[in-house]
């Protein structure tokens, strides 16, 4: 009985540690992918936006009444709309 505990306990502990390490690696890699994806989103939007803007000849002007937004999440009920060629339909 003692022998069984002596050998299985370290094996189980090692196995759990390996699982934890794998989970850590997995989540870290996912964050990196997500960050890269966000950057790509901005670059894609930027590229699409300027494609349309340059074609139209419109020159943007700084707007009044706005602020930098520090919150991470968009508040419930507020609007977050993508830019390209959008219509209401």
């Amino acid at each position: 009985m003692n022998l069984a505990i002596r050998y299985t306990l370290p094996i189980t502990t090692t196995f759990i540690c390996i699982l934890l390490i794998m989970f850590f690696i997995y989540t870290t890699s996912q964050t990196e992918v997500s960050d890269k994806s966000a950057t790509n989103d901005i670059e894609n939007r930027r590229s699409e936006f300027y494609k349309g803007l340059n074609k139209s000849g419109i020159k943007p002007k700084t707007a009044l009444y706005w602020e930098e937004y520090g919150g991470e999440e968009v508040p419930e009920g507020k609007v977050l709309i993508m830019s390209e060629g959008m219509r209401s339909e």
Partner: protein
Amino acid sequence: MEKKSRKVKCLLCPKECVLSEYERGDCRSRVNIDGELMTLNYGYTVSTNIDPMEKKPLFHFLPGTRIFSIATAGCNLHCKFCQNWQISQFTPEEVKYYEMPPKKVVKQAITFNCPSIAYTYSEPVTFYEYTLDTSRIAKEKGLKNVLVTAAYINEEPLRELCNVTDATNTDLKAMSNDYYKEICDGTLEPVLRSLEIMKNEGLWVEVTNLILPTLNDNDEDIKRLCRWVVTNLGADVPIHFSRFYPTYKLKNLPPTPVSTLSRARDIALSEGVMFPYIGNIPGHPGENTYCPSCGALLIERQIYFIRQDNIIGGKCPNCGLEIPGIWE
């Protein structure tokens, strides 16, 4: 290298859109460019006309004069019955525009003998900066400024705009928040607040209520609207009950029956509204102005034109009652 998204929050209208870089607001005309909110319709008109004042409609403000009218693309509401959806529901890049800086607008208005400028057709809230700058120059040159608006705007920017605005025809689309949400993609309360602000800031205010069959045409809706106007703005604020014609996303509805509009006018009179009008029905006697005291015909209108104007010095020629409005 990682790039952090710089979000901005637009504070112009009650929607207060939060935008990541290169996203644009619900109005389609304001966009986050590298962490700075920019407007895309400043100085780019998509519609420019010389209209009769009665077309706005403003019936108690410089009647019979011409008003230089401009619009740009975009709107912060999305009414399913929009009559000008071809310009209001598109981005500035999608609609053919004419470059017309504020100074040029004012110069053109003067050239064409228009004593006033209207910011209209789409939604002046959406071209706020353009409206504000043009209005300031117009004011300096002695012209008057008129907002034709749904008044879906935050208090601070509205108050700033009121400093250079003389009159407004504001849509009060219904007295129901559900209606604003479902039909217009907005909310009621900010509109009511804006109307009170404009009245308190000394603008000449007229209200338009477009009546749609089955959606906002029952007696109780109309009564509530009239009561709110009388209580909060005053009995002397004209209300225009306007006829709906099928368009845009509500082509399934019939035009508003004439009888519905006549009934709305009768309800308004019984609720104490001194100047209820019927719009979009050419030749209807409900287009005319009558003295609320003696019933004399004061101004007879035919579509957008005045056939007779009997008001003398802002008073009824029959009983001498002072008629509220800006007549000269």
